[in-house]
């Protein structure tokens, strides 16, 4: 290049800046993406490789030395009853929160879909719980669930019902947390159903009414099937929430009583932060990540469709 330029060829002198310009234009997209890609690599992709790698090692907490243990951490994880229970708890928690909050969300959306002033107020009030931190919700329910004098027991007593030890009874505590989650998320999911309802073709609904469908039939055979993309989208969000939100567990129960509210992420947090069983925490993290990855492979297309429908 330089030799040609030194030769003083008129064309080469002109070509040089053009080539530089083209090079700059070619690298521009990558330069624009670089900050984001670097950060995604550092805090999303490298960490996955890191847990995969570190789940194969045992880290002596006292010595700081790590020794290769193969699948030892996974064996220890599956041998740990608390982990098994956290998986079962998480499944119950998912079964208790996801269908119920989604069904309520759909009902709410159907009830307040028309734009009236009354409906606007109702929508806002139903949305309030999803605006506040989960920690704030937990601290509210701390008092609501208080045995004897709490809001629940106080008003239940007025109608002659004896309350339970909402957070202290191993048979009840997980359901209390499920209640908080449903209260917090139903209004949020309602938004997506409201958006979904707006995209439904009016003619189809009208035709169904003219054909003499009852309200229930219309819901069951027309509205719900047409809302399938929205439902798929909300389902993905709800499942992510089930795996990634444990603030209320930390504040209200710390996984107790007798492990009855220990969710998988809380188990991971506890192993890493309190027991310093890093290898086990890494192994459990990798299993959670794999689950999310598997789910994402199945839902990426649906999600893109859902976002288009929502926007």
């Amino acid at each position: 290049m330089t030799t040609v330029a030194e030769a003083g060829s008129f064309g080469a002198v002109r070509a040089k800046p053009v080539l530089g310009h083209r090079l700059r234009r070619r690298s521009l997209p990558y330069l624009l993406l670089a900050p984001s890609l670097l950060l995604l690599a550092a805090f999303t992709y490298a960490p996955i490789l890191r847990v995969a790698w570190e789940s194969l090692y045992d880290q002596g907490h006292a010595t700081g030395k790590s020794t290769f243990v193969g699948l030892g951490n996974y064996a220890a994880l599956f041998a740990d009853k608390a982990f098994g229970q956290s998986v079962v708890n998480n499944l119950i928690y998912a079964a208790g929160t996801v269908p119920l909050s989604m069904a309520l969300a759909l009902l709410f959306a159907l009830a307040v879909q028309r734009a009236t002033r009354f409906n606007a107020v109702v929508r806002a009030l139903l949305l309030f719980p999803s605006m506040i931190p989960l920690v704030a919700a937990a601290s509210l329910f701390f008092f609501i669930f208080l045995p004897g004098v709490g809001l629940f027991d106080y008003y239940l007593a007025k109608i002659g019902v004896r309350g339970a030890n909402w957070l202290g009874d191993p048979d009840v505590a997980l359901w209390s947390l499920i209640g908080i989650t449903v209260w917090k998320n139903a209004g949020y999911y309602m938004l997506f159903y409201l958006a979904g309802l707006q995209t439904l073709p009016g003619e189809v609904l009208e035709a169904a009414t003219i054909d003499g469908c009852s309200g229930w039939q219309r819901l069951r055979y027309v509205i719900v099937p047409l809302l399938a993309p929205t439902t798929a989208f909300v389902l993905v969000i709800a499942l992510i929430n089930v795996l990634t939100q444990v603030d209320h567990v930390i504040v209200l129960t710390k996984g107790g009583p007798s492990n009855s509210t220990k969710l998988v992420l809380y188990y991971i947090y506890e192993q890493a932060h309190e027991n310093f069983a890093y290898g086990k925490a890494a192994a459990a993290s990798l299993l959670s990540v794999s689950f999310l990855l598997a789910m994402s492979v199945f839902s990426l297309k649906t999600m893109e469709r859902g976002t288009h429908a929502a926007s």
Partner: protein
Amino acid sequence: MRPDVKRTGLVVALLMAITTFLWSTPFLWTLVASFRPETAGGIGMASLVPDFTPTVENFRNAFESGDFVVYYINTAIVAFGILAVQIVTISLAGYAFARLSFPGRELIFYVFLLQLMLVPPILIVPNLRTIVDLGLYGSLLGVMAPYFASAFGTFLMRQTFRQIPRDFEEAAVIDGAHWWQSLWHVLLPMAKPGLVAFSLVSLMAHWNEFLWPLMVLNEPRTHTLTIGLAMFALSTEGGREWGLLAAGTLLVMAPLLLLFAIFQRQFINSFMFSGLKG
């Protein structure tokens, strides 16, 4: 309207009114309890009826016993700091995806898209180690760093930019503008709705976050509101200071509820827009 349709409408409205009232009782209770004077043994604390002369004592005590001012400042630094950096990273990346064609675009886009599912909480354990390695443990910057890039924000900006006709920029380019000039002067001002939507979602997500700051921050002077509130709630355990806890909770929720009341329409639009949190 047929009379039976009208009747159904009334029944639905009544049912919704009752449901909404029940749904709002935790908030009603907070409001009533935070202004209630301290009662002996906490009896009657659960009542939703404001049968007392309101007092601001609980709020004063809350401010004195928790370092709420410090928590407010720290939370604001975290939430707005993350947002400021995100706006830069998502605008640049969104522009690249929306307006430039280059080899590997599809692949890189999927790298971004996948991150929508691999939400940060699932990676707290390895990310904490990275933060320690970077020497950011215990600092607010350590809390913020993992969120500086946002796949969701990039996705949103890409969609927003794509909806803007190219003619506007072409006019600017003919006038001799560089890409950053057309991004800054033409695209970004027109992408304002998308930016507002993203900002509201991002601010709320990070204002509300708890587990990650709890793991990164190790001393009270760096604590955020959610950590402060959790400590507050745990120290109230067994005590009679329910009014105090109610006041503290109200203080944490107030900015969000206020923001929501003001920007209700934008909030609702941005959440429908988003689905996933910033």
